[in-house]
């Protein structure tokens, strides 16, 4: 049974391997032009070229910095709004409808407005990343706080907890799993937004998205492909790392 399971697991690799085989055949027998699909060898050579790898890693660093700046801004504002909406019914009734309406706007639809307000430089991209990070945090925090069991709140009331102590000792820890899930989503969305912003909002930046766009303009499919592979790897890696955090933080709920 166990072996069969592993069999099934490996079936996931059939398609990628077939693709790689096709790639190899296509480039070796010149079925397609090398500007569409770069031969393996050339990709490998480019990766070893110090100038190419330097531009890619400088780009990665720049994009990552913007990701951190933007998500820090979006997450902190999102936490404040989420806690506010979760704790106060009045605040929820006042702000809630506008927030949920704004949430319906597809994130990329903000770009023309953002470029009009903040230009097409770094600030605009950071704001865009912040916006992407903002929504999931507000939703997760709000839901987490609203679903704190009343039984736990009564424990705090019987122990004469002040509002601050109630928040610190009961409400936030109870909402923590939901908030952390939201933070994970938020960081992933921020990464999409950081790259997306570089693709869409002006190429005059040094992020890895811009490096990829420039490679397209300069007819360097090898750099383009390396850039895309690097972006995907960072996304996969972030996902893997972020998945481990709740496992450690919330040991108390695992059986």
């Amino acid at each position, binding site marked *: 049974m166990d072996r069969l399971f592993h069999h099934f697991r490996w079936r996931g690799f059939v398609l990628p391997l077939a693709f790689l085989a096709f790639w190899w055949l296509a480039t070796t027998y010149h079925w397609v032009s090398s500007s569409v699909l770069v031969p393996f060898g050339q990709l490998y050579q480019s990766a070893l070229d110090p100038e190419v790898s330097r531009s890619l890693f400088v780009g990665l660093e720049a994009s990552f910095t913007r990701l951190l700046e933007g998500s820090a801004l979006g997450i902190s504002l999102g936490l404040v709004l989420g806690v506010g909406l979760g704790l106060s019914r009045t605040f929820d009734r006042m702000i809630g409808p506008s927030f949920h309406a704004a949430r319906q706007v597809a994130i990329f639809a903000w770009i023309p407005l953002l470029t009009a307000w903040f230009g097409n430089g770094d600030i605009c991209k950071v704001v865009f990343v912040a916006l992407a990070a903002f929504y999931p945090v507000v939703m997760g925090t709000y839901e987490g706080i609203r679903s704190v069991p009343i039984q736990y709140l009564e424990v705090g009331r*019987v122990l004469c907890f002040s509002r601050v102590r109630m928040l610190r000792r009961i409400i936030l820890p109870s909402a923590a799993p939901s908030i952390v899930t939201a933070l994970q989503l938020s960081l992933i969305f921020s990464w999409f937004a950081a790259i997306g912003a570089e693709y869409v909002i002006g190429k005059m930046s040094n992020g890895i998205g811009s490096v990829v766009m420039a490679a397209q303009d300069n007819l360097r499919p090898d750099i383009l492909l390396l850039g895309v592979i690097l972006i995907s790897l960072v996304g996969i890696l972030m996902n893997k790392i972020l998945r481990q955090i709740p496992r450690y933080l919330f040991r*108390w709920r695992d059986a």
Partner: protein
Amino acid sequence: MSLVLETPEAVSSAPKTARKHAGALNLRNVSKTYQVDGKPLKVLQNINLVVEPGEFVTLVGSSGCGKSTILRLIVGLDTECQGEILLDGAPITEPGLERSIVFQEHRLLPWLTVSQNIALGLDASRLSPAERERTVREHIELVGLSGFEKAFPRQLSGGMAQRAAIARSLVTQPEILLLDEPLAALDSLTRLHLQQELLRIWSREKVTMVMVTHDVEEAVFLSDKVVVLAPRPGRIRKEIAIDLPHPRNRVDPAFGALRQAVIEELTH
């Protein structure tokens, strides 16, 4: 003789921060009405009850007789009622640390360990960290959970979780402890054992206890006074004094007679 008294066990087992005194509880003409679909529904009617300091009183009755509502009013989670509820002569208007409650579900916070859960009761107190740690340790010993300090609630059996909940409610040194069917969800063996434990804790802590139960034998086994409630609206049918000495014997004819008396009032 003094040597025997000063063995480490004797010194450490009784919590040192003794409460000032056990509370006297007085309910005068307490009535409560809920609004259900715009119509008034009377849940409590003219409850008059006196609980002496250090007394163990149980409230028994079928479901819907407002037993739990009475406890919620005393602890201050619910404040809307007619009549007066007095603790040591002072009216109750909100929750207070001189009153404590053990719920039917243990309500331990799942993200805190046993000792952190028990320490929660002292979170707002001005005790030094050393005193706090000592008080928590004493109460863990009191309820017999030594060795489980670092366990999370999900790792505990129902009986152990309820012991931890009892320790959390006692750590604040309340004058009165309210127990809302604390043993109802436990298997019968654990239940018998925890009944003994409750008696031991009561006699050591000398705290006033008011317990709600629907188990007649449990009520007669534990309490000084059994208050029989009638349902819809909840009202007191009869108070029956249990003047048997502890430890009580469940097969003793006198015990059986009292149990029978309570059952007759309940099924009246």
